[in-house]
């Protein structure tokens, strides 16, 4: 199902792990070289800045090829536009498949932009005309399409988009099922987030799904945020007023439950994160704790904002200063030591250089002769 060969993905992973180990000085240059030589990867990922430029240039090429196709087709009414957008969506997806099968682009900027463009034109096709239940259908199709893109190209961003679409889909279903659906919507959405969290956590432990661990991690972060949002008093109160009918006004008993959850969830995340030494939960817990304070302040104001800010600021300064002092020597599995600084800069460049010389697959060495005008280069427009 993957667009990339298993060996390429696996070897890339090994290379990354080995370079981390080398930078941490766990293995010597000799072992690092041997590992890289034995694990060549043909995946093409250029330098960071080059990737950004490639992405921008791909946007230019995509926009103007869309314009050109529109001019040639002469589409003028809504149905013609739907057809045009569907055509462009398929065209860019095909271009993506062709480019990856011939050139093995992996996070190269070009493939990321083509993936997003394919999705954008699919959404545009759905929203050009007002069909019945349009948004439910769109979110369902989006969830499936993004999931497919995630599976096929092992892409974390697509995994996130897929989960967001699924979340919106369930929310819209709840909205359509009348008063009961609206009343239990927060609980159903919390359940959804929890289930997806459990599934992705299970996936993260499965070695066979090694290449999706990053996608799982990205979705997990989103599930714990959306779990909180589904139970946040402000979101339910204000969102409910906007989305749901007046009949579904929140009962007072529910209000208490949501207040408790709003306060409790960030604290639980934070404590869980500290116990499990999981920075994901610690950071999210802290950020959501701020959201909780803002939620409380929105409904109950005790002091003027600047006094609150001053008090909060001083408390935070004192706490962080105390933590710096406290964690000078590592305690309870946490330390204030900057691990990045320990990596010697010279060693870092050496790692890059070794990675350049070794670790390349020989078959792809001659692939990128400039200006040859091979079929792959014309991919963005090749199939119209």
């Amino acid at each position, binding site marked *: 199902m993957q667009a990339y060969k298993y060996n390429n993905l696996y070897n890339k992973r090994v290379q990354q792990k080995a370079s981390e180990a080398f930078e941490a000085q*766990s293995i010597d240059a000799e072992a690092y070289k041997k590992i890289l030589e034995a694990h060549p990867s043909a995946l093409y990922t250029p330098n960071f800045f*080059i990737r950004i430029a490639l992405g921008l240039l791909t946007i230019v090429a995509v926009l103007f090829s869309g*314009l050109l196709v529109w001019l040639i087709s002469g589409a003028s009414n809504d149905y013609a536009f739907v057809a045009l957008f569907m055509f462009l969506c398929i065209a860019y997806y095909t271009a993506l498949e062709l480019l990856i099968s011939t050139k093995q682009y992996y996070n190269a900027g070009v493939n990321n932009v083509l993936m997003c463009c394919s999705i954008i034109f699919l959404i545009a096709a759905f929203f050009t005309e007002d069909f019945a239940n349009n948004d439910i259908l769109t979110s369902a199709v989006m969830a499936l399409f993004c999931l497919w893109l995630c599976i096929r190209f092992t892409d974390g961003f697509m995994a996130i988009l897929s989960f967001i679409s699924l979340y919106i889909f369930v929310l819209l279903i709840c909205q359509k099922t009348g008063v009961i659906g609206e009343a239990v919507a927060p609980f159903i959405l919390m359940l959804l987030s929890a289930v997806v969290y459990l599934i992705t956590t299970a996936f993260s432990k499965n070695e066979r799904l090694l290449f999706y661990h990053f996608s799982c991690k990205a979705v997990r972060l989103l599930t714990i945020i959306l779990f909180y949002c589904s139970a946040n008093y402000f979101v339910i109160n204000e969102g409910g007023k906007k989305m749901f009918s007046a009949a579904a006004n929140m009962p007072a008993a529910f209000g208490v439950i949501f207040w408790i959850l709003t306060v409790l969830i960030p604290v639980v995340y934070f404590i869980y994160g500290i116990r499990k030494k999981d920075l994901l939960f610690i950071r999210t817990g802290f950020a959501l704790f701020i959201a909780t304070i803002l939620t409380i302040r929105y409904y109950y104001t005790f002091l003027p904002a600047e006094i609150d800010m001053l008090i909060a600021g001083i408390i935070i300064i004192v706490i962080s200063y105390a933590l710096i002092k406290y964690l000078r020597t590592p305690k309870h599995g946490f330390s*204030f030591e900057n691990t990045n600084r320990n990596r010697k800069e010279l060693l870092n460049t050496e790692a890059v250089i070794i990675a*350049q010389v070794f670790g390349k697959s020989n078959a792809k060495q001659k692939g990128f002769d400039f200006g040859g005008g091979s079929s792959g280069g014309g991919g963005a427009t090749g199939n119209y």
Partner: protein
Amino acid sequence: MDIFEQLHQQNFITRQQLDKIKLQQQQPVSVHWDILMLLYLGILLATTALGILVYKNIDTIGHTAIIISIGLTCLACFVYCFKKANKYAPVKVESPNILFDYILLMGCLLLLTFVGYLQYQYNVFGNLWGLAVFIPMVILFFCAYYFDHIGVLSIAITNLAAWLGITVTPLQILNQNNFSDERLIYSGILLGAALIVFSIITMQKNIKAHFTFTYKNFGAHILFIALLAAMFNYHNIYLVWFLAIIAVAYWFFNNAVKKNAFYFLVITVLYAYIAVSYVIIDLLFAIPDTSAVYLGAIYFIGSGIALIRLLMFYNKKLKQDASI
């Protein structure tokens, strides 16, 4: 199974190395950046709150008291820095502790506020507005070199540009400048060129050589944007400006390839692309019928793909040279 265990079984790494890796993985979690972020957040909240408090109570506190307290805090910061600082040297000097960098930065920012406040409230420099920017600028450049602080250097360069009447903060560079102002365009070109020349001198004379990137980065963006503004503005002779941009781009491009600088390679190609596209579109406007639109679309598709290939080619070339 873990990747490293597999590598061990295949005899790529020894038992000791595997143990070392395992030990690494069990090391305490570093919360260095988390706590520093927390500290910034606290400082930001407290100072913003103080600012609002002062602003709301200005009638009872009075300007003089505020100016004096800002001045004293600023002075305290600089006294601390002079006491703690390591001795000046033309090479990179490490700062004595974590706090030092932030106190220096605070002192420099307060200095700007102090001088600005003096001029705004008491008109100390009279109509010599330039002087109110020039004096802090000189102090900032001195601090950047004496204490070896790139952040302060960036503020100093921003002030140098402000002295010439240009806004160069990244977010405001495009929307806060009046690019049809002739004086602004020329001072932009001069400033950009001067910064680039200075970056070369810094490198060659080896005086704080790690400042080179900051000078060159500011210089490149200011010069390219000023030249592009000149080209859009003086339409009659735009080909002259176009040639100037291409000449500058050519120099930057060669320099980037020689130095293996991906960043400068990319920005040079993109700025030159804007200039070339402007000329092409201008030529297409000369065609009276709608075929110009088709040709324009084809140009952008073709040029986009061609540049992608070009960048990929140089990506490969630069990476290979990095291995020598």
